[in-house]
């Protein structure tokens, strides 16, 4: 059995986008081939202007089991949003 190519995750930033979005994955022998193949497979319909490829093995993800512990504390801190603070009508630029 020949050596299997590593797995890469592909991220694309669209023309009007601010951030790269994960669009899928592919196997490629090296970074150059990964970018070329990502272009061929994930940008046929003008999906983006920038491609990142990252070895899947290098990605560290939070555990689904930790969802509660990690994200629950933010639920009670709604004052982080400006809309929590109503401002008087006559006061401008706030």
């Amino acid at each position, binding site marked *: 059995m*020949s050596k299997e*190519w590593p797995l890469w995750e592909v991220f694309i930033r669209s023309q009007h986008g601010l951030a790269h979005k994960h669009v899928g994955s592919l196997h490629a*022998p*090296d970074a150059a*081939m990964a970018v070329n193949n990502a272009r061929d*497979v994930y940008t046929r319909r003008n999906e983006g202007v920038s491609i990142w490829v990252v070895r899947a093995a290098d990605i560290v993800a939070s555990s689904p089991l930790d969802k509660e512990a990690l994200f629950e504390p933010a639920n009670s801190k709604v004052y982080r949003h400006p809309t929590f603070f109503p401002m008087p009508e006559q006061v401008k630029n706030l």
Partner: protein
Amino acid sequence: MQEMEETLMYAQMVETGLSKVRTEQDMSAEEAAFQARIDAGIKIEAKDWMPDAYRKTLIRQISQHAHSEIVGQLPEGNWVTRAPTLQRKSVLLAKIQDEAGHGLYLYSAAETLGVSRDELLQALHAGKAKYSSIFNYPTLSWADMGAIGWLVDGSAIINQIPLCRCSYGPYARAMVRVCKEESFHARQGYDIMMSLAKGTPEQKAMAQDALNRWWWPSLMMFGPSDAESVNSAQSTAWRIKLFSNDELRQRMVDQTVPQAEYLGLTVPDPDLKWNAARGAYDFGAIDWSEFYNVLKGNGPCNRERLRTRVKAWDDGEWFREALVAHADKQAAKTAAA
């Protein structure tokens, strides 16, 4: 019939490996929690606990779906060099490229379940894993490109839209992307049919001939009636399968008959008749012996399709190995520098 249960392809015949649907009594606490998530419409993701049978069923179904995309390129590849115009050729090539992409999304989804690409391809090349029966039919004229896009991709869309809501996250998401691209495939096919149907009498006859040959195999794509099938019932309980084979097939017929009427073509079914009471078309009996024969490997093109796939893989080995050698060499250079 046991042998037939084992030869299966995506959405045509699902094998779960179970002889009856899992009940509360059968389930461990883990499995009960898993089933509760499914019932609540929560997606199962790659790292979540899942019953072995669920995992195996999905590996089988998703990989065979992937194989179908890749083998599905071959019938159309046959007409690339003989497209009537450069535009038609470009469009056909674009469709074939899409099929490669669909294969990739699906292999990727299958691989999240703990199986390697090499394993999946080995199973295909050894004739152990199957692909959709429809791709074992030959493409005999340019009109077949129209009929395939219209009827085969059309049927695939009907099957795939519900899959966008299936319980396994990676498969559902792959289907969303596939469905977006598939609509172009169906329209491209119908566009070809329209040109032919509005053309010379010879062109219209060619279109009718293609419809005659692809109609029944397209209906067979949905698989035999599964009202009695344990596998389908379990697949439904797991929310992999959302509609029965018969429901999807009926949907296809009801959608497609008016499209054929617009073309001025005749659906090759003397029993086809609108049933006002049902609000649907009644249609003739399907010859399932043909379907099972094609599954067994005796369709017109089974052996040729597999031979072509294996040859492409074998012939490309030197290139794949060279890429790895090059990558290793560059990595060594960088390390040494």
